[in-house]
């Protein structure tokens, strides 16, 4: 008995998997082929993943009376996925096999909620996905169908249908698929365009434009001499980072501040590790350009920002745009830009009256109006005042402490020094987020780094401990993982015999 050709489709809710299924069924029916499809639509919500299963009898075969409703492991001829992780899921579940399955999948990623809500980078390793895709399927048709859909002005499911047609794995000519799109009668022109794009990609007739994620350099003038100084003294491998640091800090504050950056780096360069220098240069530039209201105002009023917003929200041609910014400074944000003594008094008052962490000033500023923009510009103009602010003084002290730890750790072990440098990654954000990150950073400093520098752990173990603590601090905002990890580190650290006196 001739066997059916089996198709499994993995899609996200809202990807149009059902419509794709209908097109395939309709095209097969129009050729007189036996066909059966079924699906697990579940709840129709957006974020779930779902599958569709289709069986098509080969040409010339009598339509079988019993077609299966469930895919079977090792028995799928064609697997279609609208997204890379969903291709991975079909592989994970054993449906895609190297002896049989043609895998047709989009390479773009739509991150799952677990990946998005991570406190750092929680995305699944794409390298692993791609390796599994290549090793676990017979042949592959892979391209970024999301982008192809955008280029064609259509929707992803039509691109995928085109890729299926282009694969030549079904005894259905292109014309029958196109007729199915026409017959369905919705967005016919754009769907046909997307179909043609998909088919062209599958047949290798179209080149995939690579989607770029370009890093943005800070634009600033008059730092040529500082850059020259860096080039003279530092190894080439760290220069891209150091030069960006110079530009960033000049724009953030001034040339003098950028020079301070280089002075600080000189002491690190003297430790002799280019790798360590690069890491410290990166984190130091970020730490020195800490986020205060002045910096936010600078960012929101920078010269290229409006063009960026227009592109991001896809405002066309000369469509007027109104941008409203959301600010909610509290007592701490205000104290941050006051001189230390005044700041202390304000914070004390806030604490006494219970207003600290309670009283905020919600402000909505429209930066596309002249007055709104001017207000922020005024705040951005406070840059000259910044070195007198309490936040500046605190940050510099914290930075010096951190640099001191790195310098002290380097002779013990470069790994430990690098991990201490990397722990600065925990400090980010605003308000509570910043406070939480800083608290975690300080806890690791007190409970892991300090004992390590005091020689109470081997440098190797200390480096691991700092790394583990950093990962744990990023695991959950409640700090449960960090508490557990710190306890484990404390328990594992061998008690060094104390001097008798």
């Amino acid at each position, binding site marked *: *008995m001739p066997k059916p050709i089996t198709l499994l489709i993995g899609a996200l*809710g809202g990807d149009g998997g059902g419509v794709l299924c209908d097109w395939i069924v309709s095209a097969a029916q129009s050729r007189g082929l036996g*066909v*059966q499809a*079924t699906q697990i*639509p*579940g*709840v*129709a*919500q*957006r*974020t*779930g993943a*779902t599958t569709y299963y289709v069986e098509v009898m080969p040409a010339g075969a009598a339509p079988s009376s*019993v*077609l299966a*409703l*469930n895919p*079977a492991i090792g*028995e799928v001829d064609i697997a279609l996925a609208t997204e890379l*992780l969903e291709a991975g899921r079909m*592989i*994970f579940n*054993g449906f895609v096999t190297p002896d049989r399955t043609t895998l047709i999948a989009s390479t773009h990623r739509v991150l*799952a*909620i677990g*990946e998005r*809500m991570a*406190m750092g*980078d929680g*995305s*699944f390793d794409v390298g*692993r996905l791609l390796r599994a895709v290549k090793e*676990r399927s017979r042949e592959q048709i892979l391209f970024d169908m999301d982008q192809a859909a955008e280029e064609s002005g259509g929707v992803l499911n039509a691109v995928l249908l085109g890729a299926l047609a282009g694969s030549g794995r079904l005894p259905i000519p292109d014309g029958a698929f196109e007729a199915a799109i026409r017959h369905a009668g919705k967005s016919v022109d754009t769907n046909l365009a997307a179909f043609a794009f998909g088919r062209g990609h599958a047949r290798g007739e179209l080149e995939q434009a690579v989607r770029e994620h370009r*890093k*943005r350099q800070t634009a600033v003038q008059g730092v040529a001499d500082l850059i020259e100084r860096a080039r003279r003294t530092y190894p080439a491998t760290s220069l891209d980072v150091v030069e*960006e640091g110079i530009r960033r800090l000049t724009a953030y504050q001034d040339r003098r501040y950028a020079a301070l950056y280089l002075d600080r780096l000189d002491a690190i360069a003297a430790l002799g590790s280019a790798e360590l220098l690069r890491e410290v240069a990166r984190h130091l530039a*970020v730490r020195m350009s800490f986020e205060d209201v002045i910096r936010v105002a600078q960012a929101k009023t920078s010269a290229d920002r*409006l063009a960026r917003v227009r592109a991001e*929200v*896809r405002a066309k041609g*000369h*469509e*007027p*745009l*109104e941008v*409203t910014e*959301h600010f909610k400074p509290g007592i701490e944000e205000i104290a941050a830009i006051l001189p230390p003594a005044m700041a202390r008094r304000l914070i004390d008052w806030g604490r006494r009256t219970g207003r600290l962490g309670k009283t905020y000033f*919600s402000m*909505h500023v429209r*930066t596309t109006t*002249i007055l709104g*923009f001017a207000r922020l*510009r005024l705040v951005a103009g406070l840059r000259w005042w910044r070195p007198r602010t309490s936040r500046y003084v605190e940050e510099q002290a914290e930075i010096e402490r951190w640099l001191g730890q790195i310098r002290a750790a380097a002779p013990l072990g470069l790994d430990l020094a690098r991990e201490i440098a990397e722990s600065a*990654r925990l400090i980010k*954000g*605003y308000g*509570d*987020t910043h406070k939480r990150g800083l608290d975690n950073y300080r806890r690791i400093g007190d409970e892991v780094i300090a004992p390590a520098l005091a020689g109470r752990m081997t440098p190797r173990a200390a480096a691991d401990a700092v790394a583990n603590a950093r990962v744990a601090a990023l695991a959950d*905002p409640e700090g449960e993982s960090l508490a557990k990890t710190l306890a484990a580190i404390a328990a594992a650290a061998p008690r060094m015999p104390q001097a008798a006196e």
Partner: protein
Amino acid sequence: MLDQPAAQLPVSQRTNPERSFSEEVRALRLGDGEVFRGEGILAVTKAILQSGVSYVGGYQGAPVSHLVDVLVESQDLLDELGVHLETCTNESSAAALLGASINYPMRGCVTWKSIVGTNVAADALSNLASPGVIGGALIVVGEDYGEGASVIQERTQAYALKSSVWLMDPRPSLPTMVRCTEKAFELSEATNTPVMMELRIRACHVTGEFVAKDNVPPAISRNHRLAEPAAHNYDRISHPPSTYAHEKIKVEVRQPAAERFIVEHGLNEHLPGERSDLGIIVQGGITNVLVRGLDRLEVEGKIPTLVLNVTHPLAPDQIADFCKGKRAVLVVEEGAPDYIEQAIHVLLRKRDIDTKIYGKDVLPMAGEYTAEVVTEGLLKFFAQSANDIDLSGPRERFEAARAGRTEAQRLLGGPLPLRPPGFCVGCPERPVFSAIKLLEREVGKVHISSDIGCHSFATLAPFNLGNSILGFGMSLAAAGAVAPVMQKRTISVMGDGGFWHNGLLSGVASSMFNRGDRVLVIMQNGYTSATGAQFIPNTSGNRRDGETTSDIAATLKAMGVGWLRTIRTYNVGTMLKTLREAMSTDDKGLKVIVADGECQLARQRRIRPQIAAQLKRGERVVRTRYGVDDEVCTGDHSCIRLSGCPSLVVKPSPDPLRSDPVASVNNGCVGCGLCGEVADAAVLCPSFYKADIVQNATWWDRLKWKVRSKVIGAMAGA
């Protein structure tokens, strides 16, 4: 508080969004000899009309929602035929609808999702089954079991057994499903018993074709009304002493009649095979999986198979005849307990037939019978009962596929990120849970009693809120014994669908009556959104007219609820304040917050065509959406943990010095403003901005824009 999206309708004006079943409606009109093409559930709907039903009713739920949904759109056809359609407010009301067939010779069909719907309907079902029916009564249940199921995993079979209702489980092929539907009415009338027909998820959505027949207008109907009610007959009342008689009639008269009918009309199917010493008995609904499994082992067509399209009652003679003379028979019966296998054991034992029965010993007791599970069971069955069949080749291939999967999982290195269902972009229910999360930051963890509906997604990431789900509309009742032992008040969350389904009486009335000191949040979006945006009593009208039937706040007031607030959900700050007040007020009674926000899916369906038309006419339209300044965002993703909006994504940081990805709003944004609201209410960060893009700008817009961008450009450059 931020600016809110415009164009939200007050609840009393919300109407069913545009959903088009025009293709399906056409299919229902097909006549004699025409070929029907479509899904299983639509084929069953067509078969109902071909059977001459007088009335149809039901309560929506996957996978059988379409039955009523399509009929709602087919009002013209129903009017022509005279068929009455009742969109019931719960399954109990749907089951009670069948009461019409107790006294009158008219056919009726109702539908719901099982097992949950059958549970709700159980009281009426028992009272229907006891006196029995004279008009054919069919209940189409969506057996929501296995992959994609959203309810507890139990079997409808239990109800069929205990109430003496017949249960069909047709082989998922359209001609078989259609024939079973038509025969179900005949069986029901021949035995005075309601018939249930269970359809699994894949069977409801399976595509196929069959040759249609003309629809049959019922003899008694809206178009042909009865002059007189039925004569009083106490035998038809389910009260003693009638009930004592009913119990006996069920087993002495009706069941034997059903057993005869099943055999005489060939409802179960024999698939022939050359191995007369072996056999398989399978539920109709699992047949395709079984056949493919046999095919995989290269024994397809060799093993005689009895396909039970009716799984209750079994026809004892048919089973005995099938087993007689066989060494071994495998029973393929999905789900626990193994009612059919046990019955076959007893039946054979009583007749001294010594055929060895295999079943749950080689197949798992619980869980879906997927292709892999059945293939493995078959391998075990043949190994124990027929080792003369050489299965080494197929077994090797099967094992290789499994080993390949292990290898694939090793390559992928551990489990893949899950994609739990979540709230849609712009969902009005999401802000309520953001507010609850913020409330918990202040007062600590709160016991949250969850319910059925879209809002149950809050029990998943990123909210992870909710301690229990006890059934549809049950969340307030489920807090009944928790609230009195808790220092903090409990919060019950319920949808408006759940409120009308059950929550009003089981929850609100009971809590008021018992002076419960609890908090109830009712999500008022205007539809039962999780099942496809069906009408409910507080929607604007029902399918017939635009009058709102019942208002929730008015209903609660009439019931004596003293502390009642209606809040627009998107105002996270206000919602938080209201929740705080509800948790701390001195009022000791029930505190109800009606969280009002139109279902965004419905809203988008409604306004998208309107906006497209406006744009086409050249009218000024302001498009609002949100964005994140990637230069200000530092990549902590607190905003995502507090909202989880699908359009709030992450992208690589454009900053050459930072490695953590930053948040970003993608083009799916509908401008609901929640991300900005949350950033504001939780004091997160200044990264969010709102962008209003003026399409088809007026000369004044353009002039303003020109002047502003000139001046701003000059200031920025300065």
